Each structure stands twice: as structure tokens, then as C-alpha cells.
């Protein structure tokens, strides 16, 4: 069975239908891209899945458990972690402390030494080892995104949800980042659901791509199928 499955997920804010009857699946051990024009509902879908808010209707099943409407902390404990499009570090805490917060909630009984070494390991995994003593608000945007990644990894997730982690990177950095996200799957065995605007990166890394447009699933398929589909081209470029 798929690791994550959404059935008929809808969400409206007042009169605005942000998502309508979205069906999707994310298979274990895959990297799935979630793309769509601005305002298509990608981040709304993320929020509904990760428990930031409750969907208006529909069901979300994660790892064979119904998580519809569960709060974010409960969803996290079941093994789902996320980053935020606009980063949300714990600004007045050091980088190490940021990651430690995630670690202690995964391992509440473990001694402090274990937590600290785990947090350091995650920080060096994302290349922030030297920054551990700095308060997170002093980091630049790219470092903040990495910090969020380390924090998410310290919750030891099965599914990692990334919300636009490549913004602001140059071509070379993008290909490094793509390698990095691949390694999450290959080395850590994670499943990745990934919102991204940088199409080239998604096309390289993802096995499957889900295209959202105006709150609905336009199509889902392999990257090659998606780029050649006339509906997708139309959604992005117009008539």
C-alpha cells in the first residue's frame, strides 16, 4: 500500500475553493514532485496533509493510519516531516538547539549527550556543522532552508515533505541540491514529496510528478509524460 494517500481532499477558505476533490498517492521509497502554477494549491495541500489545518472534506491516509484532521505534532510523531516555503526557524535559538527540539520530541527518554550528537550529525549532514552555535535568525535564506531540512530529518521521518527548497540557488547549487535530495532517498531510505518551481530539478530527481492546477489534479505521471502533456503546457503557458 502507498505510504501516503489522499482521497477527495477539499479545502475551502470562506468562499475560495483552494482544493477540490484532490486524489493522490505517494509510493514508498519514491521521490514525487508536486508542481503547478502559482496559486494552484500546492502549499495548501501540504498544510492539509501535515496537519497545519483540517481539510474541509476528504480523507488522508499515512502509513496505513487515517490522519485526517490530526494536529501537526501527532502527524510528525507518526513519521512525517516538512519544511516551510517561507522558512520558520526558531530564530532566537542556536542552530544546534533548533535541531535538538526535533530530536528530543522523537526521543524524549534519551540522554542529552545522545540528543546533541544526533543534532550535530544532522547539522553536518546538511553542511551547517560550523554554524551550530549561531542563533538561527543570523543565517541567510539558503542556510535557513538547510536548517529546516536538518530539523525535519531529526524527527526521523518516513516521509519528508519539501516546500520549494531550491529558490535562490544557482544552476550548480541546484544540481548539488538535487544530488542531496536523491541521497535522502538512497542513503536514508526516505520517501520525498517535493513542491518545486524549478522544473529541471524535478524532472531530474522525481519518479512521479503530480500536477495541480486551480485546486485540482490536472494529471499525474512520469516526468516525461508530464512535460509532454498539452494540458500541462496549457496550464503553465495559457492558450
Amino acid at each position, binding site marked *: 500500500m502507498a505510504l501516503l494517500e489522499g482521497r477527495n481532499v477539499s479545502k475551502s477558505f470562506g468562499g475560495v475553493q483552494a482544493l477540490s476533490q484532490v486524489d493522490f498517492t505517494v509510493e514508498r521509497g519514491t521521490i514525487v514532485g508536486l508542481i503547478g502554477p502559482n496559486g494552484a494549491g500546492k502549499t495548501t495541500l501540504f498544510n492539509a496533509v501535515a496537519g497545519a489545518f483540517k481539510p474541509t472534506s476528504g480523507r488522508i491516509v499515512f502509513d496505513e493510519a487515517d490522519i485526517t484532521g490530526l494536529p501537526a505534532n501527532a502527524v*510528525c510523531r507518526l513519521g512525517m516531516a516538512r519544511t516551510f516555503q517561507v522558512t520558520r526557524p526558531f530564530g532566537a535559538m542556536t542552530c544546534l538547539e533548533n535541531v535538538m527540539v526535533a530530536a528530543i*520530541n522523537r526521543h524524549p527518554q534519551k540522554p542529552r549527550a545522545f540528543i546533541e550528537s544526533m543534532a550535530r550529525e544532522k547539522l553536518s549532514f546538511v553542511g551547517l556543522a560550523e554554524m551550530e552555535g549561531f542563533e538561527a535568525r543570523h543565517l541567510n535564506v539558503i542556510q535557513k532552508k538547510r536548517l529546516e531540512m536538518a530539523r525535519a530529518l531529526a524527527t526521523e521521518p518516513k516521509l519528508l515533505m519539501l516546500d520549494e527548497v531550491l529558490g535562490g540557488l544557482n544552476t550548480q547549487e541546484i544540481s548539488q541540491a538535487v544530488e542531496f535530495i536523491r541521497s535522502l532517498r538512497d542513503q536514508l531510505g526516505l520517501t520525498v514529496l517535493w513542491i518545486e518551481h524549478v522544473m529541471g530539478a524535478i524532472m531530474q530527481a522525481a519518479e512521479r510528478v503530480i500536477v495541480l492546477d486551480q485546486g485540482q489534479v490536472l494529471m499525474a505521471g512520469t516526468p516525461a509524460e508530464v512535460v509532454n502533456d498539452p494540458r500541462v503546457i496549457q496550464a503553465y503557458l495559457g492558450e
Partner: protein
Amino acid sequence: MTGKKLAVIAAIILSGMCVLPLGLGIYPQHVLIVSLFYVMMASSWNLLAGYTGQVSFGHAAMAGIGAYTSGILAVKAGLHPWIGVCIGTAIAALLGFGLGALCLKMGGIYLSLTTLAFSQILHIVIVNEYNVTRGTMGLQVPGLMDEYSKITYYYIMLAAAVLILAILYRMIHSNLGLNFRAVQNDEAAAKSVGVRVLRVRVLAFTVASAMAGFAGGLYGHYLLLITPEIPSLDLQFKVLAMTVIGGMGSFLGPILGAFALNILEEYIRVYGEYHVLVFGLVALVVARFAPNGLTGLWRKFRPVRTQPAVKQI
């Protein structure tokens, strides 16, 4: 700072505090006792406002709950003050739990307004329930021991303050402390990494309220006369000013602030009502030049550490 060094400094300060009142007269001793009450109040309020970001205006009310519960039990039921203080602490904890749960979904100004309303309601009830509380006349209560002795009260308050500070210190430096600060920094992000935000917030409210109730109970039995001055907004804002001026969100800040402002108040008392003006000026100057309080000032001018330790005071 390493744990050992910290323990040595704490021990030196503590022994200093033990000897301090011996050479002083009755009045300075009184000022110190009151300062210790404020140390407990400001430090526990700091747990709420400085560590979890819940700016409650009901903290003085909780001290009032502790004081009046214990006082009324002693006067009406003849209960020993120590038992009364324990019951007062428990009731403050219970009310703190309730108030915290009520404010769960609220942030910022809404939480402040709700706790302000709670505080005002309590104040009105105390003033008007003359038969039980003696209203603004004040309730005369027995002391903690049979024979009144300033110095004994001083040591009792010192022990109580040390107990409260030790509990707070342990909490702040445990996993719970990290969760507290995560909630204060960003609730949504804290939730996303598994922090049980609701539980953390209510816990902070319960613990801080219990501490205020405990401090208020002891204070009432020291003053021997419990008046609606304890659960008043005046006292609440004094606690707020002490915490902010000392340094919100730091362990030492409220302790320094409590001593500094309470002793300052003694010196400016001669100006009568104008002393409030001086308080305001001090707060203004601090807000302008040391927005992170006295401890923030210290941190600012200390040489920059390249490798800040995880533990910070």
C-alpha cells in the same frame, strides 16, 4: 558557563544572602523579604512570558488566590498556615490550569486581555465579598510561626525563593525548556517537529500559577494583613516591569530586576505618587537603550563567543 563554575557562583551568592541581613536593621530586612517575594513572582512570570510567550496579566491574581486561600482557611477553619499555603498553591495551580486551557487557542493580545479580565473579576469579588475577605480593610491572618521574627521570615522566604529558582532552572535546562522556547519562537514550526504545543503551554501556565500562589501565600502570612493590593494590577505591572527591565527570557534577569526595582522603590518613596513616574522613566530608558534588559546589556558588551554553549543563562 560550565556547571561547576555556575554552582560555585550560586553557592557564593547564596552564602552572601544568608549573612546579608545579620548586619541590617529591621527595615532593610523587610525590604529584602519583599524583594524575595518579587523574585519568585518575576521569575515564575518569566516562565510564562519570557519562555513560552504567554504574556499573562493574571499572575498577581494567582498570588492573591494563594494568599486569600491560605488566609481564609487559617481564619475561618483554624488551619495551620503551612497547610494553608500548600492548599493555596494547589488551588492556584488548578486555576492556572483552567486559565491556561481557556487561553490555549489565543495568542498575543487576546491572551493578555483574557487574563486581565480574570484578574479584574477576582479583584472585584475580593473587594465585595466583605464577610469572607474583609474587602479593602484587609484580612488579618496569623503568622507562619508563633513568635514573630523578621530574620526567620527572611530565611523562610530565601529558602522558598531558592526552591522556586532551582525548579525553574531545572525546567529551563531540560527538554521541557527547549520545548518552551520552541513554542515561543514559532508555534507552527514547533508543532511540525512534534512539540505538543497545547500541553507545553498549559503546563507552563499551571507551574507558573502554582509558584505565584505559593509566593503569595507566604507573603500574606508575612504581612499578617492580606489586602486586595496583592491581586492588583499595580502589583502585576510591577512584576512585569521587573522582568522586562531585568531581561525577559533570561534566568538571571527577573532576579536582578526584582531586587533592583524593589530597592529603587524604597529610595524614591519620598516622592509619593511621583515614584510611579520614576518607574516609568526607568522603563523608558531601559526599553530604549537595553531592549533585552539588564542581562541583555551584559550579553551585548561581553566579548563574542565563537562557540556559544548550548546552556545559556
